[in-house]
């Protein structure tokens, strides 16, 4: 028994070292900007940089818009699949999984080909058009996570009976969706939203090839020209991702339902 326990803990420790050692080393390196002693100078420089602020702000705005558009597409879809079209569940799930098997590079070349300046809908011809294309690309990339989170939320409540109870009280489809269904799967939507946000913040391929000033390409640019700031940025990016994961975890534990502990 003791031997087994030691073996189990050894595996956990090895995995921990594998994941944590590079992070710790990166963090340690990020503190060495000033010779002879540790400091947060690299972080100060990063946060003080106008490029960092604008890139992060750009990605954050795109992330929020991506979440709103994604939720507006996915929530009614998952609702109708759950309520009226359960036979289509397999097809819809397959479609939502496609972004996992189609690489982002393929997706973006497709976009450029379809929406290039010579096409019928030349979205890439203007910065705003490219932003829209980037956002729609992120909606596609976030689809597997957003759909699964929302679908799981739909399955956790009795969508059919709640919809019928609202309908018999006089409610139409928008009222049912926005006043009954969405508030009851709020934590699931937020889980999907934070996952999507984490993806958008660090994404490089779409933003780079569409030539948008996002956080991913900024990370790459800084990494190619500086020594300590990229390490600080990597740590910051990790903290953002972990923050999102932590919020998802917290939502999952505390806010999933209107439970008796209120």
């Amino acid at each position: 028994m003791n031997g087994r326990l030691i073996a189990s803990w050894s595996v956990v420790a090895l995995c921990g070292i594998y994941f944590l050692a590079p992070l710790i080393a990166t963090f340690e390196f990020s503190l060495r900007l000033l010779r002879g002693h540790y400091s947060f100078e690299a972080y100060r420089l990063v946060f003080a940089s106008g490029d960092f602020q604008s890139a992060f702000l750009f990605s954050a705005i795109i992330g929020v818009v991506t979440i709103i558009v994604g939720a507006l597409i996915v929530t009614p879809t998952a609702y109708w699949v759950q309520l009226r079209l359960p036979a289509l569940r397999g097809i819809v799930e397959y479609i939502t999984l496609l972004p996992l098997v189609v690489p982002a590079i393929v997706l973006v070349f497709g976009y450029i080909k379809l929406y290039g300046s010579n096409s019928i809908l030349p979205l890439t011809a203007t910065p705003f058009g490219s932003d829209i294309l980037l956002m729609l690309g992120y909606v596609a990339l976030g689809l597997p996570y957003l759909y699964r989170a929302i679908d799981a939320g739909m399955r956790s409540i009795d969508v059919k009976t709640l919809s019928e109870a609202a309908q018999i009280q006089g409610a139409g489809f928008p009222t049912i969706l926005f006043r009954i269904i969405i508030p009851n799967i709020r934590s699931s939507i937020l889980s999907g939203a934070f996952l999507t946000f984490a993806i958008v913040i660090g994404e490089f391929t779409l933003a780079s090839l569409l030539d948008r000033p996002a956080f991913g390409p900024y990370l790459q640019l800084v990494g190619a020209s500086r020594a300590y700031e990229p390490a600080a940025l990597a740590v910051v990016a990790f903290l953002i991702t972990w923050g999102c994961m932590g919020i998802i975890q917290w939502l999952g534990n505390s806010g999933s339902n209107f439970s008796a502990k209120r």
Partner: protein
Amino acid sequence: MSFLSASGIQKHFGAHVAVKRFDLEVEKGEFVTFLGPSGCGKTTMLRMIAGFETPTRGTIKIAGKDVTDLPPNKRNIGMVFQSYALFPNLTVAGNIGFGLRIAGRPPQEIKKRVGEMLDMVKLPQYAERYPAQLSGGQQQRISLARALAPNPQILLLDEPLSALDARIRASLREEIRALQLELKITTIFVTHDQEEALSMSDRVVVMRDGEVEQIGAPKEIYNRPRTRFVASFVGTLNHLRARIVDPARGAVEIEGYPAFTKSPLDGAGVGDIQAMALRPESLQVTNADGSANVFKGVVEDAAFHGAVVRVKLRLKDTLLLVDVFNTGEGAAPQRGQTLSVTFRAEDLIALQGD
């Protein structure tokens, strides 16, 4: 003219026929129960009245208006669901006032009406609680209040008591009936529990395999079941095979014993075999022997049920259930004892069909 009318209703789900034919006229203020086993079409019929399903054939009218193709949110119907279906994100007050807010009523009116409804279901102090903080019985009361708050023209109850424990079920059953009588609201109740159906309803519609077997007052359904199915579904019953002796006089022979029905057995011929039924409580222990409407047998079992002792009396080929009232006097029938039982001619029921 009836208040709710369903005529020639059929409902097909692909190849499956859920309702074969259904015709019903319900008067204003009447409490009608759809009773039957699982899959008999009672819930499908209720859902068609609610508007959640559209009949394949036939028409549904409410207050003279054809609502067959009207969506549920345009029918002004209140419904209580088996699973309560309270909105978890809204408080009790929010749930009760939901329909009124949808109807665009002023906040003051909503608040007043919510208060009235809470008083009506005797839960005035629960307005700010969430459904998850209530017991099953309380949730169902709130569900009833929510259904009634917008003053619906019809109240539909879809097995509202089946998720509750026996004690709460009994008290809520009485409360629902009392409320219905007070509000005089036309009510359709769906259940598979015959006790609920008999104790609450003005009329009972017994359904089987998508068809109506019998419609009648509870007493009529219980005492005069038309078919073997109705007889066996409502209450406990002894099924008997009777040989017709004299149809004009209602004379038959059951297990070699002479017996009489109250009415002539129209359409039956001498020597025909007729399905008959007797309720266990309509049999009484007697000392009489050899006269009509008396069976003699051996006690196989006697089980004490409190108010009654249920005796299993073996005739030749039939095991007869007899409920002997526990008066506290005299010895209860014992196993192996020979016992004679008698019954009134009007209690011997001739059954139609299967």
